[in-house]
């Protein structure tokens, strides 16, 4: 859109070939001279605006939008505290017999005894990079059929199974709650939707495999062979994932971030918080409690920290729980995680947990349609404050505008100099287009890199797959950077830079529609770095500009971010050990990002290689020229 606007204005300007300038000439002069200051102003103003979103007057209080939900109106009937505790003891006993696996048969037998329709699903993950290993697993699920209604719609209650030797906290409490819930409500006559009780294996992989089999699609590269499911229950309307270690908790954390930064409908999140409040249970967001006084300075800072915490987890595109894989099927889902901190009197017991889950399901039962009333795009600065897309887009756009404004200014400048010079050294369109296409081709070729690097690394250096991919990337980046250091004519460089700015702005705005946190961090990091690559006078200047662009390389950004994250997670360690930790994390992270993209469809790696790297290459090439 900016490009067409620019072309239109350019068309107006370039009609005057006689040398007389058009009426727009003063405007053009203003744009060119003031551009630098306007860019600074926009960038800083955008940052301040974004920070101010956490302020109570700017964010809004949450409310339930969907009238049909009627949250908390019905009296809870869950009274099976002792039943749940018995289930918990049996699960723990059974789990101790399989320290590394899942007691499939036992769980299936429990579902069977409760009278549910039981199904199991075997899935296989076939790695296509490095040594060709296969990774198998099995999910078990039971369906409670609604008595007086046809099985057209359903809701899911899920829990990931974690064996005793797993590094994650166990979830046996959630599974026990699931079984107790099924036992208590299997004879209820008021269910209008089927309830699917799902126990998955291997964390994210199991859930993704189950959903792919249920919907008979393969959103990612098809590495997972999910088989088919025999028992089905119509279209799934909503899902609740439970991560509760034992039968007690101090607070319930509601996790919302999904794959590629997709979020569940705000109504479902508010429903969970409201039902927790009804049962006098502390509910948190990002494990943070709401500030006592949101209008004070401390309150504002706490809200800001919560918002930044949400943005940092949303930006990675990695879901914070198994719920994250439901969102792209149009199924709203959240995770309820219970954390127990000793020393708290009156911890939450199965009674309250059961009532909360029951309340959520009774409200979901009332729904006639999928969630559609409340927001799908929002930021939360607390459990009860939200910022909608209409509000957060404004500071983001102001922050991302400098790239567009600089592109416009460069174009005006080019046209002016084109009009002014009689003996013009015209733009070499072929070279410009050729360079742009070349950089994008480099980007696409990098898709072939990981498998080649893994093969070579294994055969020659005996590296692990993740190490060989990491070193391969660094090597490839260095080679490409050195290839792209050839000199380019000033006017061509400026045209290329203009196009590169436009591309980057397009990428940021397009990302903002899907994952605002990622787009904001892109704008925050990349805008000053790319805008600093203007024409330099001396060779030292060119070197300096190239250094600035180097800071914007994805691998460099990755290292810096991991360093900061290591410092935040281990503040007590010495700087060298933090550095070492971040380096080892960086090695693994490239591989994780790759596998995330292949197995789950996380777009971070794809966008980076396909779009961001070529743009970076264009900036690197034209830095200082």
């Amino acid at each position: 859109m900016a490009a067409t606007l620019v072309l239109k204005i350019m068309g107006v300007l370039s009609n005057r070939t006689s040398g007389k300038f058009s009426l727009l000439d003063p405007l053009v002069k203003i744009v060119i001279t003031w551009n630098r200051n306007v860019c600074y102003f926009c960038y800083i103003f955008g940052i301040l605006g974004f920070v101010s979103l956490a302020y109570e007057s700017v964010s809004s209080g949450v409310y339930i939008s969907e009238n049909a939900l009627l949250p908390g109106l019905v009296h809870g009937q869950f009274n099976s505290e002792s039943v749940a505790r018995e289930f918990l003891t049996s699960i723990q006993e059974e789990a101790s017999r399989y320290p590394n696996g899942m007691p499939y048969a036992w769980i299936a037998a429990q579902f069977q005894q409760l009278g549910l329709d039981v199904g199991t699903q075997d899935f296989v993950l076939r790695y296509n990079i490095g040594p060709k290993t296969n990774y198998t697993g099995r999910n078990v699920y039971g369906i409670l059929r609604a008595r007086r209604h046809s099985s057209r719609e359903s809701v899911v209650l899920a829990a990931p199974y974690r064996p005793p030797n797993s590094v994650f906290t166990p979830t046996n409490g959630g599974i026990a709650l699931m079984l107790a819930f099924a036992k208590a409500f299997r004879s209820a006559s008021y269910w209008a939707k089927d309830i699917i009780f799902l126990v998955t294996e291997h964390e994210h992989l199991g859930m993704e495999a189950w959903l792919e089999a249920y919907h008979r699609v393969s959103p990612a590269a098809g590495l997972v062979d999910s088989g088919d499911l025999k028992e089905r229950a119509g279209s799934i309307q909503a899902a609740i994932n439970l991560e509760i270690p034992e039968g007690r908790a101090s607070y319930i954390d509601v996790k919302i971030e999904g794959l590629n930064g997709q979020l569940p409908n705000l109504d479902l999140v508010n429903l969970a918080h409201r039902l927790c409040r009804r049962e006098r249970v502390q509910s948190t967001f990002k494990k943070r409690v709401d500030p006592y006084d949101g209008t004070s300075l401390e309150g504002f800072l706490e809200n800001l920290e919560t918002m930044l915490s949400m943005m940092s987890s949303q930006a990675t595109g990695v879901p914070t729980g198994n719920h994250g894989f439901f969102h792209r099927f149009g199924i709203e889902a959240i995770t309820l995680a219970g954390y127990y901190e000793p020393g708290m009197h009156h911890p939450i017991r199965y009674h309250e947990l059961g009532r909360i889950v029951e309340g959520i399901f009774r409200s979901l039962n009332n729904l006639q349609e999928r969630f559609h009333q409340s927001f799908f795009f929002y930021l939360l600065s607390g459990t009860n404050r939200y910022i909608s897309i209409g509000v957060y887009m404004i500071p983001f756009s102001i922050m991302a505008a400098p790239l567009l404004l600089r592109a416009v200014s460069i174009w005006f400048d080019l046209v002016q100099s084109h009009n002014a010079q009689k003996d013009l050294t015209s733009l070499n369109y072929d070279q410009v287009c050729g360079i742009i296409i070349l950089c994008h081709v480099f980007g696409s070729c990098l898709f072939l890199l990981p498998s080649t690097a893994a093969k070579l690394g294994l055969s020659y250096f005996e590296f692990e797959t993740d190490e060989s991919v990491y070193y391969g990337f660094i090597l490839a980046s260095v080679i490409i950077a050195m290839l792209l250091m050839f000199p380019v004519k000033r006017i061509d460089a400026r045209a290329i830079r203009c196009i590169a700015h436009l591309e980057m702005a397009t990428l940021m705005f397009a990302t903002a529609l899907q994952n605002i946190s990622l787009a904001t961090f892109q704008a925050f990091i990349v805008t000053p770095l790319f805008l600093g690559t203007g024409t330099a006078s001396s060779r030292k200047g060119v070197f300096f500009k190239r250094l600035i662009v180097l800071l914007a390389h994805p691998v460099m950004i990755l290292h810096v971010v991991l360093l900061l994250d290591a410092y935040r997670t281990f503040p007590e360690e010495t700087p060298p050990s933090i550095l070492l930790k971040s380096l080892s994390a960086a090695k693994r992270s490239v591989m994780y990002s790759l596998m995330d993209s292949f197995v789950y469809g996380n777009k971070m790696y794809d966008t980076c290689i396909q779009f961001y790297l070529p743009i970076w290459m264009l900036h690197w090439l034209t830095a200082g020229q």
Partner: protein
Amino acid sequence: MLIQLILAVNCLFLTTESFKPSHTNNWAVLVDTSRFWFNYRHVANLLSVYRSVKRLGIPDTQIILMMADDMACNARNPRPASVFNNAKQHIDVYGEEIEVDYRGYEVTVENFVRLLTGRLPAGTPKSKQLLTDEGSNILIYMTGHGGDGFLKFQDAEEITNVDLADAFEQMWQKRRYNEILFIVDTCQAASMFQKFYSPNILAIGSSLVGEDSLSHHVDPAIGVYIIDRYTYFALEFLESVSRDSDRRLSEFLEVCPKRHCISTVGIRSDLYQRDPREVRVTEFFGSVRPVEVYSPKETLLRFEKNLTVIPSNFRQRLTGTALHSPPRKFQYGNQLRIPK
């Protein structure tokens, strides 16, 4: 024994008291314009009025009940086959004897207007027709979701106050009613009767324009709001009315003051020609009509050998007697037990 024959004669007026009922039959049109489980309270409103109206004497043949009827057998109903209007669940207003005339997706604006104006296609069953005449008093009760100047029908369409006013005018031109008591229990209810221009309509709305009508209480066992405020207090009043009550319409108009209803009850009485203080509640809610009783000079019929013998000049003697006898003291028959 004063009488041997009782005859109902059209359009005869009592001359004794100031109380002058002017109708000969009673009809009720009860409409619930909403559907879905969370609108349970609208169905409870409607059925409570239905039960009151039946109790006070209007038979099912003269009640047109229009509702989506998706409550009692809704899968979400923890008390299947029943609809309650109170959290204590004393009365099942759905019950076992209910005749819903327009159910489900038949409750549309077109059907409603056709019902009122009588322009139904040939072959429509009699139970779906409003067979009123110029001596009918009609109680029209509507509940659901409304706004400023419209009523929402089943989440798909709306009827505007202009359409409704025109429908009533058509009824007046075709002499399809004697008087109408129009009650509407929705948000901004008063906007629905702002445009009326036909005579003999008394209109009551549960809230004024710009106000919302509120629900009364929640039934935590069923998990829905169970009844609206205006109807709750109207029912409280109607419970004190029986077939032979002397309660006046003016008392009914004062039901649900602002401290109970929170919204303000709106009334339009400029089109109504009688004084509500002189109109009995049962003239609209019940089936109480003026009945003329006269005792003929001679017995017209004989009873011989277990048969009633009708003489050949029966008709002539009958009319003759009616014409030439001096004015008798008219009184209500025994069945109604109204004190003299």
